[in-house]
């Protein structure tokens, strides 16, 4: 297990041995670091799918790009730690569970995950993240206080959050993938252009639904606080189970949304029979 640090003065493929310290390409269980040293060239994409690193990281202050949208870096790693300000394109080929942790000042393209062979956790404190394909177990969107609402987390069509959870503490999420799990929101804004999660627990923030799918619905969801905005639904839909607490706000068009088994707890407590 060795630490390999990028030291190439020119932009070359990540598989180039001379571009790393000790002139040795990182191998499985190694730690690969893209440093903040000035005068270095970008890390170009390469096919290193047989390598499964312990850690791949870009250092704080690093301005280098890693891969491109057309030619991502194909590599596995238990952890991908993105702290630099460049654009990083990763096709993850790890065989185990892995973590993508992002705290980058790059609000647009800090990290783009173009493939992911196993369920992973994506943890975004700051920076723009795009998940365009693959299988993600859970997503945690945090916030950096002085840069609130700076997160852009986009799950592209075809991506799956597979049986996992999304914890959203802040930022802005635009989602068009498939969720098979739960969403817990404390803050921020989540716009759902894709299919609906099994359950939504809203304790703050705003969840906006935009769909033209008449089969869209929610089951067993709870609104404790925050806002669920259903005014972006363009076709008649039916909600089968929803609990709405007195501190939550639900916005919908009665001509579009039908509730068959929903409990508006605040209204129940104010029921006119017992007023």
């Amino acid at each position, binding site marked *: 297990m060795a630490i390999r640090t990028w030291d190439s003065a020119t932009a070359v493929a990540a598989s180039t041995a001379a571009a790393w310290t000790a002139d040795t390409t990182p191998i499985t269980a190694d730690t690969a670091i893209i440093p903040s040293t000035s005068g270095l060239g970008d890390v170009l994409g390469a096919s290193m799918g047989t390598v499964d690193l312990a850690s791949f990281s870009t250092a704080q202050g690093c301005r280098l790009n890693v891969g491109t949208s057309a030619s991502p870096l194909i590599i596995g790693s238990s952890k991908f730690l993105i702290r630099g300000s460049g654009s990083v394109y990763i096709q993850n080929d790890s065989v185990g569970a892995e973590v993508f942790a992002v*705290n980058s000042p790059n609000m647009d393209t800090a990290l783009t995950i173009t493939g992911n062979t196993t369920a992973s956790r994506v*943890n975004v404190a700051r920076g723009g993240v795009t998940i365009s394909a693959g299988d993600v177990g859970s997503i945690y969107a945090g916030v950096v206080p002085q840069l609130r609402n700076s997160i852009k987390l986009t799950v592209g069509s075809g991506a799956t959050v597979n049986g996992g959870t999304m914890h959203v*503490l802040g930022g802005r999420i635009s989602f068009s993938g498939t969720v098979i799990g739960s969403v817990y929101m*404390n803050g921020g804004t989540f716009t759902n252009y894709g299919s609906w999660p099994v359950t939504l627990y809203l304790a703050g923030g705003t969840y906006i639904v935009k769909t033209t799918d008449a089969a869209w619905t929610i089951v*067993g969801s709870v609104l404790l606080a925050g806002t669920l905005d259903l005014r972006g639904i363009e076709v008649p839909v039916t909600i089968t189970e929803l*609990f709405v607490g007195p*501190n939550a706000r639900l916005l919908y068009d009665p001509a579009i949304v039908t509730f068959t088994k929903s409990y508006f707890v605040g209204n129940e*407590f104010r029921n006119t*029979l*017992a007023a």
Partner: protein
Amino acid sequence: MALRTWLSLSETWNAANFGGTLPVTGDIVIIPRNARIAPMIGLDQSGGAGVVLLALVWQRGCKVGAGGPGNLLKIGATKLYAFGDAPVYHYNSGSLATQTFVDSPNDQLAYWGSGNQSQFIAVRRGRVVLARSHVWVHTHVAPGNPAVVRIEPGTAASELIMDGGTVQNYGNSFSATMRAGTLEQMSGYGLSALHMMGGLCYYDTTTALTSGYIVGGVLNLSRVPMSRTVTAIEAASRKNLIFDGSTTFTAAPVYLDEEALESVA
């Protein structure tokens, strides 16, 4: 469907006390705020197919409840509103799950529920004791005395949703989701999943906690020195998780802020 109002002529749940006709399935029964006598006799309405009211309502300010320990009002009700000041002892004998709403100034006992049918119960104010086969419990916040819910052993609480108040849980629960309030998970029983976005949870039991996401509030695993196992837990930061050597983690807790801010230099 008829509206039947309790007339307080005597303690007996009979036709005379409802203007000549005993409430039947589909009726709405109101115990009015000016009631002077509580129904205490003839409370078993579960004979035959059983009566399942559309609604059973104790109005706000009502000074009488129903029944007592060992003398329960046995009747089904699709919805039950316990908004009065006195205790309501209820056994849901109907064939349907009851939706119960409690908003009472009685912080000693506002509603005591039992019965074999499932029950969704939302508590805004007042103390509630539940000894049923299966409950969903939602607590909410209110000024003045808070919601206090005690879930008795043997009760399966499939989902606890807390937005305030206190829940003392002696039952097994599938999951608890908290935004505010205090959850005391008591000895001998556990939670399969705990999702905290706020509030305080004391996990005072030896039963393993198999899954936890603590992105807000505090999970306290050290109030009582008893051995317990936590199999998977993620917390937003270390301040969200309190534990000592009595807790065994089969996998190290994941602190999401440290994961994102991990030094890589």
